[in-house]
């Protein structure tokens, strides 16, 4: 897996590079702003770009906009956004921006090295990795917004499984997180899809997108 990094804070950029190299992930190039990101994506054709939301010169949502632009030019590029805050609006925009893998994680998750590298690999493979706080935010607004049926009809365990699915986790990962067997997870998942009236599918990625569409982020 070859990655590029766009992060303006040298401390974080170097920390990230060191961590990835220890894990034998090739960091092809680094950039400090949005234009730089577009340049290194063009020059190095990486599998994945790790992008900070706030980048120079505006220090607002420069990173998100550059990432969406990079995606427009290279639809197969996987994007992992690292941010210091949760903003569901950005998640929706990224999910709507194309087919490739998308991740949106809080920066401190990098410290959970194994989980972080799992997420990286998932996103590079075209999957999804959403921070649990993003998912919690989505679930909260969805739950509050509905009058009947929907999430209210799920058992607490099913709701937990739904949240883990929305984070982009595979059945095996969900089983580990919930400390149950993969078979039990499959049962939860099929119950959830039946109760929420979602189209059943074996494709993990499509499954995540269906769940996210149900939660109001991105498109099915």
């Amino acid at each position, binding site marked *: 897996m070859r990655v590029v990094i766009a992060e303006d804070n040298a401390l974080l950029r170097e920390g990230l590079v060191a961590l990835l190299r*220890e894990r034998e992930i090739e960091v092809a190039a680094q950039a400090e702003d949005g234009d730089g990101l577009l340049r290194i994506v063009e020059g190095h054709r990486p599998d994945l770009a790790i992008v900070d939301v706030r980048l120079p010169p505006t220090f607002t949502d420069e990173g998100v906009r550059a990432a969406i632009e990079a995606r427009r030019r290279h639809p197969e590029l996987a994007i992992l956004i690292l941010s210091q*805050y949760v903003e569901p609006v950005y998640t929706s925009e990224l999910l709507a921006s194309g087919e490739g893998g998308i991740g949106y994680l809080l*920066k*401190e998750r990098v*410290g*959970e090295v194994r989980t972080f590298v799992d997420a990286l690999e998932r996103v590079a493979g075209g999957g999804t990795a959403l921070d649990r706080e993003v998912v919690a935010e989505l679930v909260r*607004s969805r739950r509050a917004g509905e009058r009947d049926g929907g999430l209210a009809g799920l058992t607490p365990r099913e709701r937990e499984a739904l949240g883990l699915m929305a984070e982009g986790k595979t059945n095996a990962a969900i089983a580990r997180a919930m400390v149950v067997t993969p078979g039990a997870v499959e049962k939860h998942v099929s119950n959830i899809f039946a109760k929420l009236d979602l189209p059943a599918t074996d494709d993990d990625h499509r499954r995540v997108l269906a769940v996210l569409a149900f939660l109001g982020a991105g498109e099915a």
Partner: protein
Amino acid sequence: MIFPAMPSTTDARDDGDDYEVTLALHAALAGFVGLLVTIVWAATGAGRFWPVWVWFGLIVTVVVHALGRHGVDVLEQRMRPLAFHVEVTVFVVAAELVIWALSGGGYFWPIWPITAFGALLGVHALIVNRRLLPSLRERELTERVDVLTRTRRGALDVQAAELRRIERDLHDGAQARLVALSMQLGRAEERLEDRPEVAELVRRARGEAGAAIKELRDLARGIAPPVLADRGLVAAVEALGQRSAVPVDVDARIARRLPPVVETAAYFVVAEALTNVAKHAPTASARVTLAERDDTLVVEVADDGPGGAEETPRADAGASPTGLAGLRSRVEALDGQLRVTSPEGVGTAIRAELPCGL
């Protein structure tokens, strides 16, 4: 037979709408009568030119007609009596001068009425002046209020900018360092697989760093949510609507970025109002309108809930104001207004008007 066309005949028909028409008619009639009289004078063998008196009389009626309407319609309300007085005086003086000239000059008798009218006008002007123009003290106070309004707004702008700077500093400084720390602890943990008890210590340290990061994040969000700083009021309010517990329809008509202090106040008005809707009318839906009119931002959050909401009394001095009372102080500090209307059975509307500049 000297004043054949009395103005009363035309004035009676003058109902205001066709004033121009009646005045023109009046003038035309006067012209016609003047011409007729002149013809009569010529036909009766000329002689002393007496029609000049008839012309004078006709002109007087037309001028009175014109001045009367002018006084009612055109003059500024506040100064109307005085201006009318000036016009009448000028008119009477002019008439006297004309009469004096027509009657062949001689002793300049109009000097006496002119002096009297002038004195009367002077007294009137003095009275009006004293009543309408602010005293020196008043003017000083007005200027002082202007200065205070401007400086207070300036102070609030500076404060808002400072708070955003602090938010940025937290983001780039302490928070970034903690994130870097968390990464390093994560890497250390990876290398301690053979010493699980030390790895556990490191994991706990990482947990502490994570908690500190979260606290800083919440603090920063309380100052100004990132999306407000990044994308402005409309995007931030739309984000609020999306994550609200009730369905929210946002209608925003603002094309530009407003001063930070106004954006922040408006944002918190909407946030608090939507929280209240979710709390007190969970089955309602809400509508948020943002519009800028005459340099004032109007924010309205209306719901179709049960209504009947009552504003909790202002927080005591010393206690930090919360809820609506807190919003009210925030809005009033900007010279804005906050109104809550909540008729039983109709729904609740919170409306804030925030001046955007000076």
